């Protein structure tokens, strides 16, 4: 799920290699595997055009911006990493002015406010959509057609997904929902998981549990691809129940979340916040603790609302101090103590 920049870089380069080598049909497993191995050994072997290199640099910048900088311990290290990423993106744009990902990421990094970035995304969206849709008409061979059907659409999806995510953060929920719907129309299988942002927007607009269910049903194809109910949907439903004073229902859903996700109590207790992925939502394993942490971070807009926000907002406190979460935290603390005691004994030996 989500967009994996390295994988996407690889797929693009392999497809272009097939086009050059006139490999047909496209499902040539042996060729693909060999090409992928060459990519793993050294991507430069496959890079031939400015366009190829431009996307490759974008993928490298994404590695830095979305997967490394947020976890760096010192601010100065993170800052110089971001400077490096910005240089890569600038070069990517020069190599291929039609590289919409690089253009967008640069705007994200350089915008002073969410408003500024949102304005940029709104102004550019029609053109990006037109370009990506136009690829299919312009496709002259099976390779271009394959590209137009999937890889070529992705920059437009990421554009819309960024618009949805940023309008959600900036308090414009209808606009977020609108961007989500357009993205789902373009790609009903929702490779960027834009529908999760839609769930959060629906909860912010307090459309009720029925509306959440309808949205789920309307996009069942995409939702069912996730093993079990995703944490965004569960958090949106918990918030909706909580807003309706349906505390028993909120507790039942919370229990469900805790049952489904490993160490869910910790994620719900700490409610860590990470910056949004600049390229796209970061890639995490469905059903993993990381996925829950990511969903909780994105659900900050729901958790930190109302009196006492940000630290003591009602829903944030309700979750962190809920007996189910507290019990879980207690159990972890016990386990850690038992672990320490055991290590201590071993140390004596």
């Amino acid at each position, binding site marked *: 799920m989500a967009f994996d920049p390295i994988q996407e870089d690889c797929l693009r380069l392999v497809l272009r290699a097939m086009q050059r080598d006139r490999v047909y049909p496209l499902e040539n497993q042996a060729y693909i595997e060999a090409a992928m191995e060459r990519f793993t050994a050294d991507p430069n072997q496959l890079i031939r055009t400015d366009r190829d290199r431009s996307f490759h640099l974008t993928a490298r910048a994404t590695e830095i911006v979305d997967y490394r900088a947020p976890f760096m311990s010192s601010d100065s290290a993170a800052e110089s990493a971001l400077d490096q990423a910005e240089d890569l993106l600038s070069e990517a744009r020069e190599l291929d002015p039609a590289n919409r990902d690089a253009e967008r990421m640069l705007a994200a990094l350089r915008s002073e*406010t*969410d*408003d500024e970035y949102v304005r940029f995304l*709104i102004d550019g969206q029609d053109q990006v959509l037109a370009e990506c849709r136009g690829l299919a008409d312009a496709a002259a061979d099976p390779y271009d057609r394959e590209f137009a059907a999937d890889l070529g659409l992705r920059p437009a999806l990421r554009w819309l997904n960024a618009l949805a995510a940023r*309008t959600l*953060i*900036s*308090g*414009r*929920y*209808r*606009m977020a929902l609108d961007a989500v719907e357009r993205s789902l129309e373009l790609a009903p299988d929702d490779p960027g998981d834009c529908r999760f942002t839609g769930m959060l927007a629906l909860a912010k*607009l*307090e459309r*009720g549990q029925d509306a959440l269910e309808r949205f789920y049903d309307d996009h069942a194809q995409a939702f069912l691809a996730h093993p079990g109910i995703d944490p965004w949907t569960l958090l949106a439903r918990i918030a909706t129940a909580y*807003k*309706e*004073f*349906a*505390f*028993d*229902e909120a507790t039942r859903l919370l229990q469900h979340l805790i049952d489904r996700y490993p160490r869910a109590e910790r994620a719900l207790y700490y409610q860590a916040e990470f910056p949004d992925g600049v390229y796209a939502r970061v890639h995490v394993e469905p059903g993993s603790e990381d996925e829950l942490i990511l969903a909780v971070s994105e659900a900050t*807009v729901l958790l930190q*609302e*109302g*009196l*006492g*926000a940000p630290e*003591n*907002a*009602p*829903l944030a*406190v*309700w979750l962190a101090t809920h007996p189910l979460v507290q019990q879980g935290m207690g159990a972890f603390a016990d386990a850690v103590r038992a672990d320490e005691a055991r290590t201590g004994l071993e140390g004596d030996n």
Partner: protein
Amino acid sequence: MDPKAYLPRVLEAEYLAAHDGLTDKARALLRDEIAAHPDRYMLTRRAKALARYAEAHRMVLAGLNRIVDLPDEEFNARRIALFARAGSLLAEAIKLDPGCQEAKLLRLLLAETDADTCLHDVLLLEQETLEMVRRRYLRFDEGAPHFWLAEEGARRGGMGTSRTAKVSGRPAVAVSDGKAADDKAADEKAVDDKTAGEKSVAAPTSDIAPQAAGGQPRAEREADLPAYAVPPTSFAQAALRRVSYASEEEAAWLTTSSPEVIAWLHMVETVSFLALSTGRYQAAVRYARLIMRTAGYPHRAEGTLFLAHARLEDEKAFFETAREANELLPQHGRQEDSPWFLLGRALLFYKLGKDRPAQRAIKDFAARTTGGAFFLVAPVYHTPYLPVRPEPRHPWSLAHQAVYEADGIILDTPDFAQWAEGFPEVRAAANAFQDKYGFE
């Protein structure tokens, strides 16, 4: 509603209940007498308890106004002492009359628990109070347009059997003598004779028949959330029930002379405010809508509606509220000039991404409110409502209230305040206000 505005009415109603057949002239005299010597008319424990509550209420509001500008530490120390003094007065009131719901509400609010706990406690008290109101006032009905049914005869027989007694002078207090039993039998027959849709018209006639109370919301009351009947919409139902409701004037008298009803409305408003401040905007709307149906009860519930609809990005409901409030509440002036409307509209357009209308709206807000721009740019502490919006004391009071109530919505829209401040007109209005009124 300020106790000093409704306490005389309560005393008048109590006197009328004990003295039959007062002429209009005698009643006017009585009113003057009560105004001149209220103490002479405080004969029941209920009235005495209310007077005690009124004193505590006045003490808290006046006390807070005196200390609001003190440094934090001193303010907190003085506030705690003030609340303790008020607390003992409230305890006295509740001891005098265990049904003094106003005192219980203020006690909850002075306890300064976190918003969710407070909301939970107020919701329980609200349900208890509603039950009490249903038992005490035969003619009270959440389904009626202004919460009151017409007098007995009209209610029971539909048309033709209406008695001519002047009900507007007489509170509909529950009685538990033989008459009640007669009424109950008659009511049961009436219920049998009517269609299901009309059943909610049947009111309880004594404490032993509370299950009929209020009709339709009974089942829903057991759910997580209290729900309320709404007036019928179909023509046939409306036509059949039309004669059964109290007139607006009558409902106004009944509401403002019934302290338990006032207390219930205060709780409904409190829930609405707390819902707004804990990020529950549909609930804020639902409870504010109840307040919009009152007659004779002073409020600015339309302000809550403007903010909640703006936050929920419901343009249609927002402007519908303006139209409705202009019609229902002409005493508030044109809604288009209200700070709640002006701020709500700016938020609404901003959130919907309607840039130009949003720009015009925020400049309008700055130009047409006294202090609105200043409070938006430099938030100023507002004492919490105890329990409802205080009467405006300054030219800027309403704008201050509107911005204070919108705080959660503004924070939820992180770039909004900065965006607003970016307009020279807004900055200039804030500075001019600051210079004129000497705010720091």
